[in-house]
């Protein structure tokens, strides 16, 4: 085969290897199976990992296929399917929380709103489907970045404009924040995108465990927090997470997930 690039060939071989039956493998196994030096295999894996084609399990160090690859393939969940499945649960969340609800997916370095349920009062509101929210300041963006390595990479690489005095923009601060989100299973935006508005969001996982979207509620800061600078209302957090879990369940996911 003339003109083929060796490292791309090797990357393809690694992906094929990991693709066999949703496998998880350690570096040593991968290198020896393909007859590569460990350093070479590691370099390729690291690049694939940055691109989201491969993920490394934090606990065991083993590698598996990444979210980006699943998104490219036909197992990618259609956003309109996602909306249809989420409909009942997002309606219920709006009703129980008394706030507006959004469902978002990662898209071109931001969050694309694919579904929007009005706040259940009689106020005038417009459907925000199709709008974009920033990754670094929105609750949905943070929830997605904390659970999806590709989104995380995008967030860390991108400009992070300051929208309010509370917007977190520094790389270290963002990294710490995502760590917290990952641990607690939900993210918030406390006047970080708009003065006076706060949101809480939690990720939705498909059956392969990929964070395909996030659901969030948004309302006036004094309704979302117990006081202007107080904790986020626990009942609201519980309702958002219940909703995310219900949608996750509907997608066939969630059995082995911390969410």
């Amino acid at each position: 085969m003339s003109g083929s690039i060796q490292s791309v060939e090797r990357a393809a071989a690694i992906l094929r290897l990991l693709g066999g039956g949703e496998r998880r493998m350690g570096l040593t196994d991968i290198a020896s199976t393909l007859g590569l030096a460990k350093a070479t295999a590691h370099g390729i894996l690291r690049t694939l990992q940055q691109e989201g084609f491969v993920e490394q399990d934090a606990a065991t160090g083993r590698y598996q296929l990444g979210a980006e690859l699943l998104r490219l393939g036909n197992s990618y969940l259609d956003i309109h399917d996602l909306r249809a499945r989420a409909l009942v649960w997002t309606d219920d969340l709006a009703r129980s929380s008394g706030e507006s609800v959004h469902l978002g997916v990662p898209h071109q370095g931001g969050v694309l709103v694919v579904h929007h349920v009005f706040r259940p009062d009689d106020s005038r509101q417009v459907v925000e489907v199709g709008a974009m929210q920033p990754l670094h300041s929105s609750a949905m963006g943070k929830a997605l970045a904390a659970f999806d390595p590709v989104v995380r990479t995008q967030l860390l690489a991108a400009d992070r404009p300051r929208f309010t005095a509370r917007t977190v923009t520094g790389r270290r601060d963002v990294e710490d924040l995502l760590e917290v989100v990952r641990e607690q299973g939900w993210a918030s935006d406390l006047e970080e995108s708009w003065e006076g508005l706060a949101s809480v969001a939690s990720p939705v996982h498909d059956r392969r465990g990929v964070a395909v979207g996030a659901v969030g509620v948004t309302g006036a800061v004094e309704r979302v927090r117990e006081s202007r600078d107080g904790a986020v209302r626990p009942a609201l957090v519980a309702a958002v997470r219940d909703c995310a879990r219900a949608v996750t369940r509907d997608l066939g996911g969630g059995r082995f997930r911390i969410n």
Partner: protein
Amino acid sequence: MTDKQSNSSRGQGPYIAAIDQGTTSSRCIVFDKDGRIVAVDQKEHEQIFPKPGWVEHDAAEIWTNVQAVVDGAIAQAGLSKSDVKAIGITNQRETTMMWDKNTGAPVHNALVWQDTRTDVLCREFGRKGGQDRWRRETGLPLASYFAGPKIRWLLDNVEGLRERAERGDILFGTMDSWVIWNLTGGVNGGVHVTDVTNASRTLLMNLHTLAWEPKILEAMGIPESVLPEIRSSAEVYGQAVGGSLAGVPVASALGDQQAALFGQTCFDEGEAKSTYGTGTFLLMNTANKPINSYNGLITTVGYRIGDQAPVYALEGSIAITGALVQWMRDQMGLIQSAPEIETLALTVEDNGGAYFVPAFSGLFAPHWRSDARGVIAGLTRYVTKAHIARAVLEATAWQTREICDAMAKDSGVEPTTLKVDGGMTSNNLLMQTLADFLGTPVVRPMVAETTCLGAAYAAGLAVGFWSDTDELRANWKRAAEWTPDMSEEDRADQYRKWLKAVERTKGWIDED
């Protein structure tokens, strides 16, 4: 680690369970007092297409599925039967079945409302008095859609059935009757009833007396002994026997479209809703008066609560809307799931000149032409599958527009907004298109499952779970609203093309 199905933000019981025996699936939804969904279970059944234009269901399979979804929903919510105060029933309307009351066995597959095999029979009945021969009594034109002629077809075509019926061994029912009879014990004392809304779809009930019309029974050759007793939509018909809800009162029955009207809390004269499922049905509450239609709509019973006066409705029925999306998925293989139609449609800006009129079961309202069949008009080499996907969605919106025009003429009120519900309302592009084509805002309520909700409301009223309809109205909340964004010229121009395409469907089936 959470595998446990947390219900921490859910309200406490007691609850009402609703069974929706639909065209494509059966489902059971458990609601709490605020009308919030506590648990859902759903199961699809087989669509049987023995010949072009014929559509059947296996009623035994349906009853098995109904039991499974009831058990499923109750288990999912972790409820016991003492938490459930009543069971409400709603169902696909007109679908006709007959069974042996001694064995409980169906004598034939159920003939589904979309089935056109009774065309010829209807034309024969119409030879005297035309298509509107019994419209004054029943509110309906003679069409293969309705149940009466389907009963006659079964009596004529199932060997020995007429004799068995005349011996008193055979019962007829729409799916409400079948489900209630089985729920309340079947061969061991099951009650054989139907409600006024389902009975109003048979072509056999007099709208004014709410009783079977002897003159029509005689003309159609249907023995009265097979017919169920006509009851109100909200009263206790009996108790469930066996299963996870044994002993719970069965307390409502409403055809699915009337149930959606009820679930949308359209309790006042002039209030209307449009439901987007397999087909689409726009119903407007006309209070205690049956209004005759001169524009191709039908007159039907909206609901009747216990012994209160019946509430009537004007209805525009469209046979094929969501079913066209399913056809794109199952027969054409252009999409893998129904919602993907939106993804495909959004890859283009417009329909590329293509118009798709899905007259698969003939045309229902406002045309009532059983000789029509589906057409895609305006095809050129430019047209792609994405344009067709757009035409599919537009077909639903244009068909609604035709109904709204007829409704405005018959009722004299121009609707200011359209309340929508049903599975297709999750399609954002469709909802925007609908607002554009109608030129009025389109509003979706917070519970898209209004059909089940309506059945639950009626059952809850019957057992005193809710006190009155005002209490229910307070549960209605707006979830979304789409406003028109299309020029009057574009709207008029495209509507004209649509109507041209509709003309091309008519007369496709030869008279013989």
